[in-house]
Structure formats: C-alpha cells, structure tokens
C-alpha cells in the first residue's frame, strides 16, 4: 500500500505543482524519488510532528494540496490538536498520511502500534477517514483525496500487502465497495483486514453460506446505506479491522445499526481488544493473539452462526 501510495503521489505531483509532501523525518527508501523529482514540492520538517502539521496547514492556506507523512501514531496523536485546529477547523487542504496502521510495526513496541487512530481521527469535524483495503484501493484513495477539497486522513499498512481487487473497481470516497453479494452474512472490512475477510468469505462460501463482502475503505463518512442494507438483507453483520474495536470501523457500523428500526441482524465487531499488548510479536503473531488471523476469524464467525441456527432449531 505504501508503494502504491507514493507511486501515485509522484504521478499526481508531476501533473499538479500544488501537490506537496511534508514528512516528519521518516520514509527512508520511500520518499527519495519524490524529493528528487519535486524538490520545490517536498519538505522534511524534521522530527517535529506539531510543526509538520502547522507547516502543512500554512502551506495549504496559500493554495497547496499538502500531504503529511509519518508512521504509526506520530502522524496523528502526537500532533492531534494541530490536526483539529489548524487543519480541520480551517478546512485546510491537508491529507494526513500514516503508514503502519494497526500492528504493522508489531515487534517495535506499543509506541508503534496505531490502534486508536481511526477512532480519534473519526471524531474530528471536517475530517474524512480512509483506510484502503489493498494496494489497488490505496492508489484510488490517493487520487480521491487529492480531488477532495479539504482535510483527509489516509491510513495505510506497510508494503507488500496482497492484492484483493484484480481490476480497479469504481471508487468514490464514502461509497463502500461490495466485492461479493450474499444473504446469510455480511463481512465489512477496512484496511489490510480486507484480504483476510476475502479469504474467510471464500471459505464460508465453499461451505454453502451466502456471503456478502464489503470493503468500507472510507470509515468517515461511513456508507450508511450499505450498512443498513446489510443489517436488513443479511442475517449477520461482522466488522473486521486492525484497530481497536472501540470507535473505529466497528464503532461506526454499530452507531449506524443502533439507530435502525428493530429487527435487524446482530453485529459482531472483530478487531483489536482495547488494551496495550503485553507480548512481543510481529504483525502476524500479535494479530493471532487478538484473533485476527484467518483461522481465528473463521472460527469466531462460524461459532456465532452455529449458535444462531441452534436457537432457531
């Protein structure tokens, strides 16, 4: 996703001199080409995230389209008030980009686990929150946030995530992509969990379940219609995200479903337990501790479906 993002940004910067990139002294082996090709559109703010966002807001208020780039929580939490006041309140045309969303920097430590960022960014007025599901969506999302006149948060994984989309699907901020239709259950995924959701959907389909698979790449504004339809047209709704189950995709879907008329499907949020990790591990290891590996997700879903059939029987 990181690669798809920077390649796309390079292309956009070739065509549009307003497109700028401000980094917080991070992006080794990622940003060099951009910096070399577009020296007047590139700034390294140094290790100073508050200033990075302030600079970006100031540049944007003179007419630039400014991307800020850092990793994990440095991109968002370290400079949260600058994002709120300088960017969101002034509707400055700043796109905050974080790489390493979720547990991508697993064994580097809890400081590097971005597990609440979506919840926090989602709470800010004027902010659009995008967590693309694969490199194809990352490319499309980068183009879309450039076209958007206003603040956005782009949450990326690292490099080397599997492709889920074979071709470029129609992509619009705030409009979820339905990859597979079905009626027994809906899997709504954001970010890198889309690949896991895709595999789980295939397995469940092979077991004769009718599975709907939705990529909710834009967590804010959430596609309320797609959520409401899933809640009414399918028997179960599951959300999958590499983020705390509090306040992220699961929280957003829960907010929509809580206000629907009674009688809709139940919701299960699958994501990170809202706690600090105590054990060292790489991304896959830690994800499995949270039940986010393919096998655990499958088991969680199967148990819930089996229980519901048991109640009906």
């Amino acid at each position, binding site marked *: 996703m990181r690669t798809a993002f920077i390649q796309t940004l390079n292309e956009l910067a070739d065509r549009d001199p307003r497109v700028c990139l401000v980094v917080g002294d991070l992006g080794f082996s990622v940003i060099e080409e951009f910096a070399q090709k577009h020296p007047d559109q590139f700034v390294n703010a*140094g290790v*100073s995230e*508050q200033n990075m966002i*302030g600079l970006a807001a100031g*540049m944007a208020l*003179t007419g630039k389209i400014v991307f800020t780039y850092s990793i994990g929580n440095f991109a968002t939490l370290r400079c949260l*008030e600058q994002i709120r006041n300088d960017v969101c309140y002034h509707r400055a045309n700043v796109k905050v980009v974080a790489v390493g969303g979720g547990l991508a920097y697993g064994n580097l430590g809890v400081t590097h686990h971005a597990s609440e960022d979506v919840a926090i960014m989602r709470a800010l007025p004027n902010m659009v929150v995008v967590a693309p599901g694969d490199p194809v969506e990352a490319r499309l999302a980068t183009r879309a946030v450039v076209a958007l006149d206003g603040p956005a948060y782009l949450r990326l994984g690292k490099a080397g995530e599997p492709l889920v989309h074979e071709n470029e699907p129609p992509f619009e901020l705030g409009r979820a992509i339905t990859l597979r239709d079905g009626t027994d259950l809906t899997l709504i995924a954001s970010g890198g969990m889309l690949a896991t959701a895709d595999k789980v959907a295939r397995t469940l389909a092979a077991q004769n379940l009718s599975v709907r698979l939705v990529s909710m790449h834009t967590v804010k504004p959430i596609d309320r219609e797609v959520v409401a339809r899933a809640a009414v047209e399918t028997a179960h709704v599951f959300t999958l995200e590499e983020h705390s189950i509090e306040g992220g995709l699961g929280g957003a879907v829960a907010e929509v479903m809580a206000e629907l008329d009674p009688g809709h499907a139940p919701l299960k949020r699958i994501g990170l337990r809202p706690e600090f990790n105590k054990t060292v591990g790489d991304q896959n290891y830690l994800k499995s501790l949270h039940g986010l590996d393919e096998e655990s997700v499958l088991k969680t879903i199967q148990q819930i479906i089996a229980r519901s059939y048991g109640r009906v029987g």
Partner: protein
Amino acid sequence: MNSRATEDELRSVARKLRSHSLRMISQAKTSHIGSCLSVADILAVMYGRILRVDPRRPDWPDRDRLIMSKGHAAAITYAAVAEAGFMPAERLEGYARNGSQLYGHVTHVGVPGIEFSSGSLGHGLPVGTGMALAGKRAGAKWRVFVVMSDGELDEGSNWEAILFAGHHQLDNLTIVIDYNKIQSLDAVDKTLRLEPLADKFRAFGWSPREVDGHDVAALSTALEAVPLEKGRPSAIIAHTIKGKGVSWMEGKVLWHYRAPTPDELVTALAEVAAS
C-alpha cells in the same frame, strides 16, 4: 495598502483599540484585558504602517498575512481589524455575546481580516512558517507576521518552528513578541525564564531586535526594517507592560482574568483618553 499613518495617528488608533477592548471586555465580562492593553501599540503600528492589506479584498492573494497567535487577546484583535476597515466597528458590540461570531479567542469564521483562528497557544508560528515557506518558494512579495505572547514561548511547537524557519532562512517571516513579562499565574521570570531571549533567537538563525513595545516610532522603525538581515527570519522582541494605559491594571496578574466593572470602566477609559 495603507497610506502611511503619522505617529500621532498611530497613538490615536492605539487609544481607540484600548478603549474598544476595555468596553468589550467589561460588557462581556470576559478575561484578558491586560493582554489586550499590552499589545495595542503593536497592532496599531502593524495595521497603520506595516501590513499591505486591502480591507475591501480580505482574500487578496498578494496580501501580507498577520497571524495573531496570542488568541486570548481577541477583543483588541477584532477592534484592530474593525478600525482597519475590514468590518464596521458596531460589530464589536457582539463580542462574546450569544449568537455573534466574535468568540473570546481569535476566530476567523465570519470575521473578515482574521487570517487564522487561535486560542490554543503555540499554533500560530508553525502555520505562519508554512505560509512563509510557500511564499518564499513561489517568489511571492507578500510577507508573514506572527504576533505572539511571551508565555506562549513555553510551547515546544514554537521552538520546532523557530528551528525550522532559521534553517530554511525564511526572511519573509517576522514575529513580534509582546513581552509583557507576566503569564497566566506569575511573572515569566518566575515561571520559565526566557532570558537571554535575543541570544536564543540568534542561536537559532534568526535576527532579533529589542524595542520598546509602546513606542510607536521605535516599533515602526524596527518593523519597517524587516528582514533585519537577509536570509534570517526577524524576531521583534517588544518590551511591554501588561495592562499598559490603565495605571491600576499595569503589571498585575489579576487583569489576566478580571473584567472591569462599569465604574472601573469609566475611570479606565478616562485614563486611556488622557494618555
């Protein structure tokens, strides 16, 4: 662009700004009159002689940008843009009133002439630095001025920007520090000492100059000379008195908080008129 005001006119504008702020804060019963009074002469000089702005075109792309980073001095900032012609002075009566748009901290929404909203300290300079960087790279003629408080220099974000602006030689950026020596709870010297302040700026690659922040001639001379050195951002360290112009408010922390009563307002306005 403004025609060049005389020193008498600048002093007269400063008196008007002080009177407006006293009335606004007294009527709205809000805080920060001391912070308004200390920055009055600075704002009078900025709008009277320095800023190339056009009140008829607040969004003129080639305007100088003034960011009021000490957002708690909101009353006098609104008064300054009103006296500069960006909005009718009658609007000042809405200050901090229900249903108005003049919040108790500097707010850009619905207020022409206000470049940037502030109120949380340490935000204005990084944003001004970003504007200055963009302007410099575009070869633009317009300049950026950021008016800051002394207590605000406790904020680390400012020093991030000070380091950055010095490194990038942003000589189209000027800050004016309203150095009134008192911050929220106590004297600056007893809270977090800033001295030697000019040395700090010089060490960070800036060009500092210390002036009497109530001497409109000295302020003008310094601000008309920016950039003080080519390739360096300028720091005008304006020595001021908190509460300046009302003898019984001067140098007192109390007037960071209290609003003058109607009786106090009368004597305060009389002192300002006689000054």
